[in-house]
Protein backbone atom coordinates (compact mmCIF):
# COMPACT_ATOMS: atom_id res chain seq x y z
CA UNK A 1 0.00 0.00 0.00
CA UNK A 2 1.17 3.52 -0.70
CA UNK A 3 0.07 6.43 1.50
CA UNK A 4 0.75 10.14 1.11
CA UNK A 5 1.66 11.26 4.63
CA UNK A 6 0.18 14.70 3.92
CA UNK A 7 -3.25 13.06 4.22
CA UNK A 8 -2.54 11.64 7.68
CA UNK A 9 -4.19 13.74 10.43
CA UNK A 10 -1.78 15.43 12.82
CA UNK A 11 -0.89 13.55 15.99
CA UNK A 12 -1.96 10.22 14.52
CA UNK A 13 -0.13 7.24 16.01
CA UNK A 14 0.61 4.42 13.59
CA UNK A 15 1.76 1.02 14.78
CA UNK A 16 3.80 -1.49 12.90
CA UNK A 17 6.16 -4.36 13.55
CA UNK A 18 9.05 -3.05 11.50
CA UNK A 19 9.67 0.58 10.62
CA UNK A 20 12.17 1.26 7.85
CA UNK A 21 13.30 4.85 7.48
CA UNK A 22 14.44 5.58 3.94
CA UNK A 23 13.22 4.35 0.56
CA UNK A 24 16.51 3.87 -1.29
CA UNK A 25 18.49 0.76 -2.18
CA UNK A 26 18.83 -0.45 1.42
CA UNK A 27 15.30 0.41 2.56
CA UNK A 28 13.52 -1.06 -0.45
CA UNK A 29 15.66 -4.22 -0.37
CA UNK A 30 14.74 -4.71 3.28
CA UNK A 31 11.05 -4.05 2.65
CA UNK A 32 10.95 -6.58 -0.21
CA UNK A 33 12.34 -9.25 2.07
CA UNK A 34 9.32 -8.86 4.33
CA UNK A 35 6.71 -9.12 1.56
CA UNK A 36 6.03 -12.79 2.14
CA UNK A 37 6.76 -12.78 5.85
CA UNK A 38 3.38 -11.79 7.22
CA UNK A 39 4.88 -9.03 9.38
CA UNK A 40 3.56 -5.49 9.21
CA UNK A 41 6.12 -3.10 7.78
CA UNK A 42 6.09 0.68 7.46
CA UNK A 43 8.52 2.22 5.00
CA UNK A 44 8.99 5.96 5.45
CA UNK A 45 10.16 7.97 2.47
CA UNK A 46 10.98 11.64 2.91
CA UNK A 47 10.07 12.58 -0.66
CA UNK A 48 7.25 11.79 -2.99
CA UNK A 49 7.19 9.85 -6.23
CA UNK A 50 9.16 12.60 -8.02
CA UNK A 51 11.91 15.00 -7.08
CA UNK A 52 10.79 18.13 -5.25
CA UNK A 53 13.01 21.14 -4.52
CA UNK A 54 11.69 21.77 -1.03
CA UNK A 55 12.29 18.19 0.08
CA UNK A 56 15.65 18.02 -1.66
CA UNK A 57 16.71 21.14 0.26
CA UNK A 58 16.42 19.18 3.52
CA UNK A 59 19.77 17.65 2.56
CA UNK A 60 21.48 21.00 2.38
CA UNK A 61 24.46 21.44 4.69
CA UNK A 62 27.81 23.16 4.94
CA UNK A 63 31.49 22.28 4.68
CA UNK A 64 33.65 22.97 7.71
CA UNK A 65 36.62 20.87 6.62
CA UNK A 66 38.08 20.07 3.22
CA UNK A 67 35.71 21.11 0.46
CA UNK A 68 33.23 18.34 -0.27
CA UNK A 69 30.40 18.06 -2.75
CA UNK A 70 26.98 19.73 -2.71
CA UNK A 71 24.90 17.38 -0.58
CA UNK A 72 21.71 18.28 -2.45
CA UNK A 73 23.31 17.21 -5.74
CA UNK A 74 24.87 13.88 -4.84
CA UNK A 75 21.80 12.34 -3.12
CA UNK A 76 18.20 12.17 -4.22
CA UNK A 77 15.44 12.47 -1.64
CA UNK A 78 12.41 10.81 -3.20
CA UNK A 79 11.06 7.29 -3.54
CA UNK A 80 13.91 5.11 -4.79
CA UNK A 81 16.47 7.45 -3.24
CA UNK A 82 19.78 7.91 -4.96
CA UNK A 83 19.16 4.84 -7.14
CA UNK A 84 17.08 7.29 -9.20
CA UNK A 85 20.33 8.54 -10.70
CA UNK A 86 22.60 5.63 -9.94
CA UNK A 87 24.87 4.68 -12.84
CA UNK A 88 24.58 1.01 -11.96
CA UNK A 89 28.19 0.01 -11.34
CA UNK A 90 28.55 -2.95 -9.02
CA UNK A 91 31.75 -4.29 -7.52
CA UNK A 92 32.79 -6.49 -4.66
CA UNK A 93 35.53 -5.41 -2.26
CA UNK A 94 38.74 -7.41 -1.93
CA UNK A 95 38.94 -9.81 1.04
CA UNK A 96 41.68 -7.59 2.51
CA UNK A 97 39.13 -4.76 2.78
CA UNK A 98 37.44 -6.72 5.57
CA UNK A 99 40.62 -7.50 7.45
CA UNK A 100 42.25 -5.68 10.31
CA UNK A 101 45.34 -4.43 8.51
CA UNK A 102 48.71 -3.69 9.98
CA UNK A 103 49.47 -0.03 9.59
CA UNK A 104 45.84 0.98 9.02
CA UNK A 105 44.39 2.04 12.34
CA UNK A 106 40.72 1.19 13.03
CA UNK A 107 40.61 -1.11 9.99
CA UNK A 108 38.64 -4.33 9.72
CA UNK A 109 35.07 -5.59 9.79
CA UNK A 110 33.69 -7.93 12.46
CA UNK A 111 33.57 -10.70 9.85
CA UNK A 112 35.47 -11.88 6.79
CA UNK A 113 34.33 -11.27 3.25
CA UNK A 114 33.52 -14.97 2.92
CA UNK A 115 30.70 -14.44 5.42
CA UNK A 116 29.08 -11.94 3.04
CA UNK A 117 29.49 -14.03 -0.11
CA UNK A 118 26.05 -15.72 0.08
CA UNK A 119 24.50 -12.27 0.47
CA UNK A 120 26.46 -10.89 -2.49
CA UNK A 121 25.09 -13.75 -4.57
CA UNK A 122 21.56 -12.89 -3.42
CA UNK A 123 22.19 -9.21 -4.11
CA UNK A 124 23.06 -9.89 -7.77
CA UNK A 125 19.46 -10.40 -8.98
CA UNK A 126 18.20 -7.58 -6.74
CA UNK A 127 20.48 -5.27 -8.74
CA UNK A 128 19.34 -7.02 -11.94
CA UNK A 129 22.79 -8.44 -12.53
CA UNK A 130 23.69 -11.80 -13.97
CA UNK A 131 25.60 -14.49 -12.16
CA UNK A 132 28.12 -13.62 -9.48
CA UNK A 133 31.65 -13.39 -10.85
CA UNK A 134 34.10 -10.53 -10.73
CA UNK A 135 37.24 -12.22 -12.04
CA UNK A 136 38.36 -11.01 -15.49
CA UNK A 137 38.13 -14.63 -16.73
CA UNK A 138 34.40 -14.61 -15.86
CA UNK A 139 34.09 -11.92 -18.52
CA UNK A 140 36.12 -13.55 -21.26
CA UNK A 141 39.34 -11.68 -20.50
CA UNK A 142 42.26 -14.07 -20.92
CA UNK A 143 45.39 -13.34 -18.86
CA UNK A 144 47.34 -12.86 -22.09
CA UNK A 145 44.99 -10.05 -23.12
CA UNK A 146 45.94 -7.98 -20.08
CA UNK A 147 48.98 -5.88 -20.94
CA UNK A 148 52.02 -5.78 -18.70
CA UNK A 149 52.37 -4.62 -15.96
CA UNK A 150 48.70 -5.03 -15.13
CA UNK A 151 48.64 -8.82 -14.82
CA UNK A 152 50.58 -8.89 -11.57
CA UNK A 153 52.28 -8.98 -9.25
CA UNK A 154 51.64 -5.40 -8.11
CA UNK A 155 48.72 -4.39 -10.31
CA UNK A 156 45.86 -6.53 -11.51
CA UNK A 157 42.85 -6.24 -13.76
CA UNK A 158 39.44 -6.13 -12.05
CA UNK A 159 35.88 -5.97 -13.29
CA UNK A 160 32.75 -3.96 -12.49
CA UNK A 161 29.37 -5.36 -13.48
CA UNK A 162 26.75 -3.03 -14.89
CA UNK A 163 23.25 -2.99 -13.52
CA UNK A 164 20.67 -1.71 -16.10
CA UNK A 165 20.75 0.40 -13.67
CA UNK A 166 18.01 -0.70 -11.32
CA UNK A 167 15.72 2.18 -10.36
CA UNK A 168 14.56 0.58 -7.12
CA UNK A 169 11.25 2.44 -6.87
CA UNK A 170 10.32 1.82 -10.51
CA UNK A 171 11.28 -1.84 -10.43
CA UNK A 172 10.11 -2.82 -6.95
CA UNK A 173 7.56 -0.09 -6.19
CA UNK A 174 4.60 -1.90 -7.84
CA UNK A 175 5.11 -5.01 -5.67
CA UNK A 176 5.43 -2.85 -2.54
CA UNK A 177 2.20 -1.01 -3.43
CA UNK A 178 0.30 -4.26 -3.77
CA UNK A 179 1.58 -5.80 -0.55
CA UNK A 180 -1.24 -5.98 1.99
CA UNK A 181 0.90 -5.74 5.12
CA UNK A 182 3.43 -3.22 3.91
CA UNK A 183 2.79 0.50 3.74
CA UNK A 184 5.01 3.01 1.99
CA UNK A 185 4.50 6.48 3.50
CA UNK A 186 5.58 9.17 1.05
CA UNK A 187 6.49 12.68 2.23
CA UNK A 188 7.17 11.27 5.69
CA UNK A 189 10.35 12.65 7.30
CA UNK A 190 11.85 10.95 10.33
CA UNK A 191 12.62 13.67 12.85
CA UNK A 192 13.61 12.01 16.07
CA UNK A 193 13.76 8.61 17.70
CA UNK A 194 12.41 8.71 21.23
CA UNK A 195 13.57 6.13 23.73
CA UNK A 196 11.75 4.50 26.61
CA UNK A 197 12.31 5.75 30.15
CA UNK A 198 15.09 3.27 30.85
CA UNK A 199 16.70 4.29 27.56
CA UNK A 200 17.46 0.79 26.32
CA UNK A 201 15.14 0.84 23.34
CA UNK A 202 13.38 3.13 20.90
CA UNK A 203 9.77 3.65 21.89
CA UNK A 204 8.56 5.74 18.99
CA UNK A 205 9.59 7.82 16.03
CA UNK A 206 8.42 11.37 15.46
CA UNK A 207 7.63 11.96 11.81
CA UNK A 208 7.38 15.38 10.18
CA UNK A 209 5.50 16.30 7.02
CA UNK A 210 6.44 19.52 5.23
CA UNK A 211 3.60 22.02 5.63
CA UNK A 212 1.54 19.60 7.69
CA UNK A 213 1.33 18.35 11.24
CA UNK A 214 3.21 15.10 11.30
CA UNK A 215 2.55 11.85 13.15
CA UNK A 216 4.08 9.23 15.41
CA UNK A 217 5.15 5.76 14.45
CA UNK A 218 5.54 2.95 16.96
CA UNK A 219 7.23 -0.29 15.95
CA UNK A 220 8.97 -3.28 17.47
CA UNK A 221 12.03 -2.72 15.34
CA UNK A 222 13.37 0.32 13.56
CA UNK A 223 15.87 0.42 10.72
CA UNK A 224 17.58 3.64 9.76
CA UNK A 225 18.42 3.53 6.04
CA UNK A 226 18.84 7.12 4.90
CA UNK A 227 22.44 7.19 3.70
CA UNK A 228 25.68 7.82 5.58
CA UNK A 229 25.16 11.55 6.09
CA UNK A 230 21.51 11.47 7.16
CA UNK A 231 21.89 8.31 9.28
CA UNK A 232 24.39 10.16 11.44
CA UNK A 233 22.29 13.32 11.40
CA UNK A 234 19.17 11.54 12.66
CA UNK A 235 21.02 9.77 15.46
CA UNK A 236 22.69 13.02 16.51
CA UNK A 237 19.31 14.78 16.39
CA UNK A 238 17.59 12.14 18.55
CA UNK A 239 17.64 11.51 22.26
CA UNK A 240 17.05 14.01 25.06
CA UNK A 241 17.17 17.75 24.24
CA UNK A 242 20.69 19.09 24.74
CA UNK A 243 22.13 15.57 24.78
CA UNK A 244 24.77 14.10 22.52
CA UNK A 245 22.37 12.07 20.41
CA UNK A 246 21.33 8.46 20.28
CA UNK A 247 23.81 5.58 20.25
CA UNK A 248 26.51 8.09 20.86
CA UNK A 249 27.72 7.30 24.36
CA UNK A 250 31.24 6.91 23.01
CA UNK A 251 31.14 9.98 20.76
CA UNK A 252 31.39 7.90 17.59
CA UNK A 253 28.25 8.84 15.65
CA UNK A 254 29.23 10.86 12.58
CA UNK A 255 32.93 10.13 12.95
CA UNK A 256 34.96 8.17 10.39
CA UNK A 257 33.14 9.90 7.54
CA UNK A 258 34.81 8.56 4.40
CA UNK A 259 34.45 8.78 0.65
CA UNK A 260 36.55 7.55 -2.24
CA UNK A 261 39.18 10.04 -3.32
CA UNK A 262 39.32 10.69 -7.05
CA UNK A 263 42.13 12.44 -8.88
CA UNK A 264 44.39 12.12 -11.89
CA UNK A 265 47.44 10.36 -10.49
CA UNK A 266 49.59 11.09 -13.50
CA UNK A 267 50.15 11.00 -17.22
CA UNK A 268 51.81 8.10 -18.95
CA UNK A 269 53.91 8.74 -22.06
CA UNK A 270 53.65 5.42 -23.92
CA UNK A 271 56.72 3.93 -25.57
CA UNK A 272 54.49 2.59 -28.35
CA UNK A 273 51.76 5.09 -29.25
CA UNK A 274 49.78 2.30 -30.88
CA UNK A 275 49.45 0.16 -27.76
CA UNK A 276 45.78 -0.38 -27.04
CA UNK A 277 44.67 0.21 -23.47
CA UNK A 278 40.98 0.32 -24.17
CA UNK A 279 40.53 -2.86 -22.09
CA UNK A 280 41.63 -0.97 -18.97
CA UNK A 281 39.88 2.29 -19.77
CA UNK A 282 37.41 1.95 -16.92
CA UNK A 283 34.99 4.29 -18.65
CA UNK A 284 34.24 2.30 -21.78
CA UNK A 285 31.63 -0.39 -21.38
CA UNK A 286 32.27 -3.79 -22.91
CA UNK A 287 29.89 -6.73 -23.22
CA UNK A 288 30.15 -10.46 -22.68
CA UNK A 289 27.61 -13.27 -22.88
CA UNK A 290 27.09 -14.90 -19.51
CA UNK A 291 24.58 -17.73 -19.20
CA UNK A 292 23.03 -16.82 -22.52
CA UNK A 293 22.58 -13.11 -21.82
CA UNK A 294 24.80 -10.33 -23.16
CA UNK A 295 25.80 -8.21 -20.19
CA UNK A 296 27.82 -5.04 -19.73
CA UNK A 297 30.99 -4.69 -17.71
CA UNK A 298 34.06 -2.51 -17.46
CA UNK A 299 37.58 -3.53 -16.56
CA UNK A 300 40.19 -1.43 -14.84
CA UNK A 301 43.46 -1.70 -12.93
CA UNK A 302 43.76 -2.16 -9.16
CA UNK A 303 46.58 -2.45 -6.69
CA UNK A 304 46.87 -6.18 -5.94
CA UNK A 305 45.89 -7.58 -2.57
CA UNK A 306 49.33 -9.16 -2.11
CA UNK A 307 51.09 -5.84 -2.63
CA UNK A 308 48.65 -3.97 -0.42
CA UNK A 309 49.29 -6.51 2.32
CA UNK A 310 53.06 -6.60 1.93
CA UNK A 311 53.54 -2.85 1.57
CA UNK A 312 50.69 -1.86 3.92
CA UNK A 313 49.01 0.26 1.29
CA UNK A 314 45.42 1.46 1.12
CA UNK A 315 43.41 0.35 -1.89
CA UNK A 316 43.74 2.12 -5.22
CA UNK A 317 42.16 1.52 -8.57
CA UNK A 318 43.12 3.15 -11.82
CA UNK A 319 41.28 3.78 -15.04
CA UNK A 320 43.60 4.30 -17.99
CA UNK A 321 42.14 6.99 -20.17
CA UNK A 322 43.76 7.24 -23.60
CA UNK A 323 44.34 10.71 -24.97
CA UNK A 324 44.45 10.62 -28.74
CA UNK A 325 45.14 13.23 -31.35
CA UNK A 326 42.29 14.95 -33.16
CA UNK A 327 41.27 13.58 -36.54
CA UNK A 328 38.66 16.07 -37.79
CA UNK A 329 38.84 14.86 -41.42
CA UNK A 330 38.32 11.22 -40.48
CA UNK A 331 35.50 12.13 -38.10
CA UNK A 332 33.79 14.08 -40.90
CA UNK A 333 34.31 11.17 -43.34
CA UNK A 334 32.77 8.72 -40.85
CA UNK A 335 29.75 11.00 -40.47
CA UNK A 336 29.40 11.31 -44.25
CA UNK A 337 29.43 7.53 -44.76
CA UNK A 338 27.03 7.01 -41.89
CA UNK A 339 29.38 5.38 -39.42
CA UNK A 340 28.91 8.16 -36.91
CA UNK A 341 25.94 10.33 -35.97
CA UNK A 342 25.15 12.46 -39.00
CA UNK A 343 26.19 16.11 -39.06
CA UNK A 344 25.74 18.85 -41.65
CA UNK A 345 26.79 17.39 -45.00
CA UNK A 346 28.27 20.55 -46.54
CA UNK A 347 30.09 21.41 -43.34
CA UNK A 348 31.55 17.90 -43.14
CA UNK A 349 32.66 17.99 -46.76
CA UNK A 350 34.46 21.25 -46.02
CA UNK A 351 36.17 19.76 -42.95
CA UNK A 352 37.18 16.70 -44.96
CA UNK A 353 38.68 18.77 -47.77
CA UNK A 354 40.62 20.94 -45.35
CA UNK A 355 42.05 17.88 -43.57
CA UNK A 356 42.93 15.62 -46.50
CA UNK A 357 46.47 15.41 -45.14
CA UNK A 358 45.14 14.19 -41.80
CA UNK A 359 43.00 11.56 -43.52
CA UNK A 360 45.99 10.32 -45.51
CA UNK A 361 48.09 10.15 -42.34
CA UNK A 362 45.30 8.21 -40.60
CA UNK A 363 45.17 5.73 -43.46
CA UNK A 364 48.95 5.38 -43.41
CA UNK A 365 48.97 4.67 -39.69
CA UNK A 366 46.19 2.16 -40.17
CA UNK A 367 48.25 0.27 -42.74
CA UNK A 368 51.50 0.43 -40.78
CA UNK A 369 50.24 -0.05 -37.24
CA UNK A 370 46.75 -1.49 -37.55
CA UNK A 371 45.41 1.61 -35.80
CA UNK A 372 44.70 4.97 -37.32
CA UNK A 373 44.92 6.93 -34.09
CA UNK A 374 48.08 7.29 -32.08
CA UNK A 375 47.88 7.57 -28.30
CA UNK A 376 49.56 10.77 -27.21
CA UNK A 377 49.32 10.07 -23.52
CA UNK A 378 47.38 7.98 -21.04
CA UNK A 379 45.82 9.63 -18.02
CA UNK A 380 45.88 7.48 -14.88
CA UNK A 381 42.58 8.32 -13.22
CA UNK A 382 42.89 7.10 -9.66
CA UNK A 383 40.39 6.21 -6.98
CA UNK A 384 42.07 5.87 -3.59
CA UNK A 385 40.74 4.45 -0.37
CA UNK A 386 40.36 6.87 2.50
CA UNK A 387 41.64 5.18 5.63
CA UNK A 388 39.49 5.35 8.80
CA UNK A 389 39.86 8.72 10.46
CA UNK A 390 37.84 9.68 13.57
CA UNK A 391 38.43 13.39 12.90
CA UNK A 392 36.67 13.22 9.54
CA UNK A 393 33.06 13.57 10.57
CA UNK A 394 29.49 14.64 10.12
CA UNK A 395 28.34 17.04 12.81
CA UNK A 396 25.29 19.23 13.30
CA UNK A 397 25.51 22.88 12.33
CA UNK A 398 23.58 25.71 13.89
CA UNK A 399 21.23 26.35 10.96
CA UNK A 400 17.90 24.52 10.88
CA UNK A 401 15.93 23.13 7.95
CA UNK A 402 12.23 23.61 7.17
CA UNK A 403 11.32 20.82 9.60
CA UNK A 404 13.36 22.35 12.43
CA UNK A 405 16.20 19.81 12.29
CA UNK A 406 19.75 21.11 12.50
CA UNK A 407 21.50 20.94 9.17
CA UNK A 408 24.70 18.95 8.79
CA UNK A 409 28.19 20.35 8.84
CA UNK A 410 30.59 18.15 6.91
CA UNK A 411 34.11 18.06 8.30
CA UNK A 412 35.83 15.94 5.66
CA UNK A 413 39.47 15.39 6.50
CA UNK A 414 42.29 13.41 4.99
CA UNK A 415 45.36 12.28 6.87
CA UNK A 416 49.08 12.20 6.13
CA UNK A 417 48.65 8.43 5.95
CA UNK A 418 46.15 8.83 3.08
CA UNK A 419 48.63 10.97 1.19
CA UNK A 420 51.56 8.64 1.88
CA UNK A 421 49.52 5.69 0.68
CA UNK A 422 48.54 7.40 -2.56
CA UNK A 423 52.09 8.64 -3.08
CA UNK A 424 53.58 5.16 -2.63
CA UNK A 425 50.94 3.55 -4.86
CA UNK A 426 51.47 6.09 -7.64
CA UNK A 427 55.25 5.76 -7.43
CA UNK A 428 54.86 2.01 -7.68
CA UNK A 429 52.64 2.48 -10.72
CA UNK A 430 55.25 4.68 -12.37
CA UNK A 431 58.02 2.21 -11.55
CA UNK A 432 56.03 -0.71 -12.94
CA UNK A 433 55.25 1.21 -16.12
CA UNK A 434 58.95 1.85 -16.58
CA UNK A 435 59.95 -1.73 -15.72
CA UNK A 436 57.54 -3.24 -18.19
CA UNK A 437 58.68 -0.93 -20.98
CA UNK A 438 55.19 0.49 -21.33
CA UNK A 439 56.49 4.02 -21.06
CA UNK A 440 57.19 6.60 -18.39
CA UNK A 441 54.79 8.14 -15.96
CA UNK A 442 54.74 11.67 -14.69
CA UNK A 443 52.99 11.49 -11.35
CA UNK A 444 50.93 14.37 -9.98
CA UNK A 445 51.04 12.95 -6.46
CA UNK A 446 54.30 14.31 -5.18
CA UNK A 447 56.01 15.50 -2.04
CA UNK A 448 56.13 14.14 1.46
CA UNK A 449 53.50 16.56 2.68
CA UNK A 450 49.71 16.63 2.86
CA UNK A 451 49.14 18.37 -0.47
CA UNK A 452 47.05 16.61 -3.08
CA UNK A 453 46.66 17.09 -6.83
CA UNK A 454 44.48 20.14 -7.45
CA UNK A 455 41.72 18.06 -9.05
CA UNK A 456 41.24 15.84 -5.98
CA UNK A 457 37.63 15.43 -4.98
CA UNK A 458 35.64 13.15 -2.76
CA UNK A 459 33.14 11.12 -4.73
CA UNK A 460 29.47 10.60 -3.86
CA UNK A 461 30.09 7.33 -1.98
CA UNK A 462 29.51 8.52 1.56
CA UNK A 463 30.43 5.91 4.18
CA UNK A 464 31.54 5.09 7.70
CA UNK A 465 29.55 7.42 9.97
CA UNK A 466 27.90 4.69 12.08
CA UNK A 467 30.68 2.14 11.82
CA UNK A 468 30.28 -1.50 12.69
CA UNK A 469 32.29 -3.00 15.54
CA UNK A 470 31.61 -5.61 18.20
CA UNK A 471 32.96 -3.28 20.88
CA UNK A 472 30.72 -0.26 21.62
CA UNK A 473 33.87 1.78 22.32
CA UNK A 474 34.91 1.28 18.69
CA UNK A 475 31.67 1.21 16.76
CA UNK A 476 28.16 2.61 16.68
CA UNK A 477 26.51 -0.64 15.57
CA UNK A 478 27.34 -4.25 16.39
CA UNK A 479 28.02 -7.04 13.89
CA UNK A 480 24.27 -7.34 13.25
CA UNK A 481 24.01 -3.61 12.52
CA UNK A 482 22.12 -2.99 15.78
CA UNK A 483 22.95 0.28 17.50
CA UNK A 484 24.95 -0.49 20.63
CA UNK A 485 22.92 0.10 23.77
CA UNK A 486 19.54 -0.01 22.01
CA UNK A 487 17.71 -3.30 21.63
CA UNK A 488 15.53 -2.42 18.64
CA UNK A 489 17.29 0.17 16.48
CA UNK A 490 19.28 -0.95 13.45
CA UNK A 491 21.21 0.83 10.73
CA UNK A 492 21.39 -0.16 7.06
CA UNK A 493 23.59 1.27 4.34
CA UNK A 494 27.19 2.28 3.81
CA UNK A 495 27.34 4.23 7.08
CA UNK A 496 28.11 0.91 8.80
CA UNK A 497 31.23 0.22 6.69
CA UNK A 498 34.18 0.28 9.11
CA UNK A 499 36.70 0.22 6.25
CA UNK A 500 35.77 1.28 2.76
CA UNK A 501 38.15 -0.18 0.19
CA UNK A 502 37.62 1.24 -3.28
CA UNK A 503 34.67 -0.83 -4.52
CA UNK A 504 31.44 0.90 -5.49
CA UNK A 505 29.27 0.44 -2.40
CA UNK A 506 25.76 -0.31 -3.71
CA UNK A 507 26.11 -4.08 -4.03
CA UNK A 508 27.51 -4.29 -0.48
CA UNK A 509 24.67 -2.06 0.77
CA UNK A 510 22.13 -4.46 -0.77
CA UNK A 511 23.98 -7.54 0.52
CA UNK A 512 24.03 -6.11 4.06
CA UNK A 513 20.32 -5.23 3.82
CA UNK A 514 19.51 -8.83 2.87
CA UNK A 515 21.56 -10.04 5.80
CA UNK A 516 19.82 -7.62 8.16
CA UNK A 517 16.41 -8.75 6.89
CA UNK A 518 17.30 -12.36 7.76
CA UNK A 519 18.36 -11.28 11.23
CA UNK A 520 15.21 -9.26 11.87
CA UNK A 521 12.94 -12.04 10.65
CA UNK A 522 14.66 -14.37 13.10
CA UNK A 523 14.09 -11.92 15.93
CA UNK A 524 10.47 -11.33 14.97
CA UNK A 525 9.66 -15.03 14.66
Amino acid at each position, binding site marked *: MLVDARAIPARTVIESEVCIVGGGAAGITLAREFLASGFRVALLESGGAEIDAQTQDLYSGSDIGRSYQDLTAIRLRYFGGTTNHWEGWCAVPDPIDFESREGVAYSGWPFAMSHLLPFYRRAQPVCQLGPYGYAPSDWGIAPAAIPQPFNGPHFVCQVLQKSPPTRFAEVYGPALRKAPRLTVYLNANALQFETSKHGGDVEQLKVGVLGHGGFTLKARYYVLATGAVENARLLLSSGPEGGHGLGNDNDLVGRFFAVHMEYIG*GLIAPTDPYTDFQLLNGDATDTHVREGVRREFISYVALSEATRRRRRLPGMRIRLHQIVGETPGMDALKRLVGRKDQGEVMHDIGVLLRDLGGVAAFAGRRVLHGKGVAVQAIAARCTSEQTPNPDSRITLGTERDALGLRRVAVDWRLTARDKQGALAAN*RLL*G*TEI*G*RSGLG*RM*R*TFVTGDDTNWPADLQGDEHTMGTTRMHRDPRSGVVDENCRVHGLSNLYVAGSSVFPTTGTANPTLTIVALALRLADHLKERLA
Partner: protein
Amino acid sequence: MSARPTRREIGAFLAGAALWPQAAMAPELLLYAALDEPRRACALGAACLKALPPGQTPSQLAQAILQSLDGAAPATRQSFKRRLAGRVTEDFAQSATVEADGWLLSRTEAQLYALAALHLKYTA
Protein backbone atom coordinates in the same frame (compact mmCIF):
# COMPACT_ATOMS: atom_id res chain seq x y z
CA MET B 1 88.02 17.80 -16.25
CA SER B 2 87.26 21.49 -16.62
CA ALA B 3 83.66 22.55 -16.05
CA ARG B 4 83.20 23.93 -19.55
CA PRO B 5 84.01 21.79 -22.61
CA THR B 6 86.54 23.15 -25.05
CA ARG B 7 85.83 23.84 -28.71
CA ARG B 8 87.78 20.71 -29.48
CA GLU B 9 85.58 18.63 -27.20
CA ILE B 10 82.42 20.05 -28.71
CA GLY B 11 83.80 19.36 -32.17
CA ALA B 12 84.59 15.83 -31.09
CA PHE B 13 81.05 15.45 -29.75
CA LEU B 14 79.53 16.64 -33.00
CA ALA B 15 81.71 14.22 -34.89
CA GLY B 16 80.71 11.51 -32.46
CA ALA B 17 77.04 12.18 -32.98
CA ALA B 18 77.51 11.55 -36.65
CA LEU B 19 80.19 8.85 -36.65
CA TRP B 20 79.90 6.30 -33.89
CA PRO B 21 82.16 4.88 -32.49
CA GLN B 22 84.68 7.54 -31.56
CA ALA B 23 87.16 5.89 -29.29
CA ALA B 24 88.98 9.15 -28.66
CA MET B 25 85.90 10.91 -27.31
CA ALA B 26 85.43 11.70 -23.65
CA PRO B 27 82.87 9.27 -22.14
CA GLU B 28 80.38 12.05 -21.36
CA LEU B 29 80.38 13.20 -24.98
CA LEU B 30 80.03 9.64 -26.16
CA LEU B 31 76.96 9.14 -23.98
CA TYR B 32 75.44 12.43 -25.02
CA ALA B 33 75.87 11.48 -28.65
CA ALA B 34 73.84 8.35 -28.05
CA LEU B 35 70.70 10.30 -27.21
CA ASP B 36 67.99 10.25 -29.86
CA GLU B 37 66.46 13.53 -28.75
CA PRO B 38 69.12 15.48 -26.89
CA ARG B 39 67.10 18.72 -26.60
CA ARG B 40 64.22 16.92 -24.89
CA ALA B 41 66.66 15.05 -22.69
CA CYS B 42 68.21 18.36 -21.69
CA ALA B 43 64.84 19.79 -20.70
CA LEU B 44 64.12 16.86 -18.39
CA GLY B 45 67.74 16.76 -17.33
CA ALA B 46 67.46 20.05 -15.48
CA ALA B 47 64.91 18.43 -13.18
CA CYS B 48 67.07 15.31 -12.92
CA LEU B 49 70.00 17.43 -11.78
CA LYS B 50 67.88 18.74 -8.92
CA ALA B 51 66.76 15.24 -7.97
CA LEU B 52 70.23 13.65 -8.05
CA PRO B 53 72.91 14.26 -5.40
CA PRO B 54 74.24 17.80 -5.96
CA GLY B 55 77.57 18.85 -7.36
CA GLN B 56 78.14 16.08 -9.87
CA THR B 57 80.32 16.87 -12.86
CA PRO B 58 79.67 15.51 -16.35
CA SER B 59 82.67 13.25 -15.92
CA GLN B 60 81.36 11.81 -12.66
CA LEU B 61 77.93 11.25 -14.17
CA ALA B 62 79.42 9.55 -17.21
CA GLN B 63 81.54 7.30 -15.02
CA ALA B 64 78.51 6.36 -12.93
CA ILE B 65 76.52 5.50 -16.04
CA LEU B 66 79.30 3.48 -17.61
CA GLN B 67 79.90 1.61 -14.37
CA SER B 68 76.25 0.66 -14.24
CA LEU B 69 76.71 -0.60 -17.83
CA ASP B 70 79.52 -2.92 -16.74
CA GLY B 71 82.30 -0.33 -16.94
CA ALA B 72 83.45 -0.34 -20.51
CA ALA B 73 82.45 2.25 -23.08
CA PRO B 74 80.04 0.76 -25.60
CA ALA B 75 81.49 -0.29 -28.93
CA THR B 76 78.58 0.89 -31.04
CA ARG B 77 75.63 3.17 -30.68
CA GLN B 78 73.27 0.19 -31.03
CA SER B 79 75.03 -1.89 -28.41
CA PHE B 80 75.00 1.08 -26.07
CA LYS B 81 71.26 1.52 -26.52
CA ARG B 82 70.67 -2.20 -25.91
CA ARG B 83 72.72 -2.17 -22.75
CA LEU B 84 71.11 0.99 -21.56
CA ALA B 85 67.61 -0.44 -22.11
CA GLY B 86 68.56 -3.51 -20.08
CA ARG B 87 70.02 -1.37 -17.32
CA VAL B 88 66.92 0.82 -17.20
CA THR B 89 64.67 -2.23 -16.83
CA GLU B 90 66.91 -3.53 -14.03
CA ASP B 91 66.80 -0.14 -12.31
CA PHE B 92 63.01 -0.18 -12.32
CA ALA B 93 62.92 -3.78 -11.12
CA GLN B 94 65.21 -2.84 -8.23
CA SER B 95 63.28 0.39 -7.54
CA ALA B 96 66.44 2.35 -8.34
CA THR B 97 64.36 5.28 -9.52
CA VAL B 98 64.53 9.05 -9.48
CA GLU B 99 61.52 11.36 -9.39
CA ALA B 100 62.30 14.42 -11.52
CA ASP B 101 59.57 17.00 -11.93
CA GLY B 102 57.09 14.19 -11.31
CA TRP B 103 58.59 11.82 -13.91
CA LEU B 104 59.42 8.41 -12.53
CA LEU B 105 62.75 7.58 -14.20
CA SER B 106 65.33 4.88 -13.79
CA ARG B 107 68.42 6.13 -12.00
CA THR B 108 70.62 5.48 -15.00
CA GLU B 109 68.43 7.34 -17.46
CA ALA B 110 68.08 10.21 -14.99
CA GLN B 111 71.88 10.40 -14.85
CA LEU B 112 72.00 10.40 -18.64
CA TYR B 113 69.46 13.22 -18.89
CA ALA B 114 71.31 15.16 -16.21
CA LEU B 115 74.46 14.76 -18.26
CA ALA B 116 72.60 16.10 -21.28
CA ALA B 117 71.46 19.11 -19.27
CA LEU B 118 75.00 19.90 -18.24
CA HIS B 119 76.05 19.81 -21.87
CA LEU B 120 73.22 22.11 -22.84
CA LYS B 121 74.37 24.54 -20.19
CA TYR B 122 77.92 24.43 -21.49
CA THR B 123 77.14 24.63 -25.16
CA ALA B 124 74.22 27.09 -25.14
